[in-house]
């Protein structure tokens, strides 16, 4: 079984995230960049499925040169190889453009199962797996907290705030995983060393059949007009509890007509 995992490098959510002032895109240079947490779970699930049967795990990312760090992390966890689509022209692509490029890229790879995170912590579109599935004409089974592959059938327990839905579909299919699916393994020293020798192919837009005129900020289906930092909220009153702390909060809430 060929399992392809979509991963993304994102600014660490524990660091301050900002926008580039010149073109109003996310400033990917200024914040610490990490493999998105949910992607580690996607990689982990792919490795588990591989270990339970047989197959190969390919990690795919599209992003700037720096994204190789995210690829290395996935490879050191145990993925077999990686594909990195990197092109200046991709900068500023929006969600629909990104889905189209990923679908084209997946079209160049053998894939029985595509696994992604359910939502990246930066863009928060929360629909990339479904959009890629739609473009490839494949079923998308999303927000998985459990994935099982049985022959050519994939079964997923989908869990959201609305409840649980059990889904099944024939392979090939696209799956997105949720927070609760697993605990990702830490790369071992051996894994880290082995990752250095694993193949990483770097592709260009031409390699995947994408025209530069279809991607990037200039050709996006949406345009950002303005980015305004929210005025910093300043602290108000701060009092020390002298046995009347609760009552003083109540007084404040009454004065603000909140209770």
């Amino acid at each position, binding site marked *: 079984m060929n399992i392809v995992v979509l991963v993304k490098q994102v600014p660490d*959510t*524990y660091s301050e*995230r900002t*926008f580039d002032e010149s073109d109003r895109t996310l400033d990917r240079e200024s914040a610490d960049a990490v493999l998105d*947490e949910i992607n580690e779970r996607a990689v982990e699930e792919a490795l588990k499925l591989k270990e339970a049967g047989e197959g190969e795990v390919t990690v795919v990312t599209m992003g700037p040169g720096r994204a190789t760090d995210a690829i290395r992390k996935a490879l050191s966890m145990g993925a077999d190889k990686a594909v990195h689509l990197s092109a200046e022209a991709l900068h500023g692509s*929006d*969600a*629909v453009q990104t*889905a*189209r490029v990923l679908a084209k890229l997946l079209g160049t790879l053998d894939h029985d199962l595509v696994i992604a995170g359910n939502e990246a*912590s930066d863009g*928060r*579109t*929360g629909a990339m797996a*479904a*959009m890629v599935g*739609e473009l490839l*004409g*494949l*079923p998308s*089974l*999303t927000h998985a907290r459990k994935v099982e592959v049985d022959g050519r059938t994939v079964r997923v327990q989908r869990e*959201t*705030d609305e*409840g*649980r*839905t*059990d*889904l*099944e*579909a024939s392979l090939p*299919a696209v799956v997105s995983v949720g927070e*609760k699916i697993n605990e990702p393994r830490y790369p071992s020293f051996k894994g880290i060393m082995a990752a250095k020798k694993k193949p990483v192919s770097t592709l260009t837009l031409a390699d995947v059949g994408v025209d530069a005129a279809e991607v990037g900020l200039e050709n996006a*289906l*949406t*345009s950002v007009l303005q*980015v*305004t*930092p*929210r005025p910093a*909220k*300043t*602290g*108000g*009153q*701060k*009092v*020390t*509890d002298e*046995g009347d*702390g*609760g*009552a*003083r*909060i*109540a007084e*404040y809430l009454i004065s*603000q007509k*909140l*209770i």
Partner: protein
Amino acid sequence: MAEVMVLVDHVDGEVKKTTYELLTAARVLGEPAAVVVGAPGTAGKLRDGLAQHGAAKVYVAESDNLGDAFLDPEVAVLAALVGRVNPAAVLITTSPDGKEIAGRVAVRTGSALLGDVVELAADGTVTHSVFGGAYTVTAKANTEHPVITFRAGSIEVEAIDGEAAEEIVEVPSIGAAAAARVTNRLPARSGDRPELTEATVVVSGGRGVGSAENFEVVEKLADSMGAAVGASRAAVDSGYYPAAFQVGQTGKTVSPQLYIALGISGAIQHRAGMQTSKTIIAVNKDPEAPIFEIADFGVVGDLFTVAPQLTEEVTRRKS
């Protein structure tokens, strides 16, 4: 006047309040047209509510065969309507299902996707609040019929009469190979407390609560105010409270009228999920806790004495 399509979000014959928010928002762009996808008889139950919130039209897409279908009928109906009616926009609620439907409709119809907006202007400009409210971003679509998802609670519902003229539309058949089938559904048991993202008051506990049992202090205050209960990542990671209630960058984003943080230090991770709350109250032992930098009213003290006293005051005032 162009139509603005609103996908009706409904469960068991009841419409969700967010649908009325969308119908209200739709009016700035054109005539709201509600789209109901469901089992036969669904639209009949929802029609009055939709009419009272300004739906000029109701597209009724009903079928007996939706039982094991998963989001495909909604996508197919909306995509077909976009092709036929050329609406000014398609509005859908920001929810796990809503996001997926929106993304799929956008790629299927070649439309711009504007996600999780909080405001829609008459010229089609949308406003997003991103990185937990640290930035306000305005954006616009460069295509016809953009698909827009709206954050729940961002629009104040206005009731206004609409014709709600019904039009039956077909549910296109779905290719079996390309579809996921539903084999079982277990709807979430809704508790007695309001939904975290929709609540007007949220009371959250952090590491300072110290244990799962101690969360009772947080719950009691929440219940006295009819509030939802939230938890910081630290509290969730320590096993004090279930992950579904996590507020923060990797959890829920809330923007209630009142947010009360008990024993929460206020790391960026948490602030990103609650800093757009209208009024913030913080109780923490550590006078240097960053949460005080954004709190409108802060008490440096022990939450186990402050919170119960506040609960008592609130209860006394209500009686």
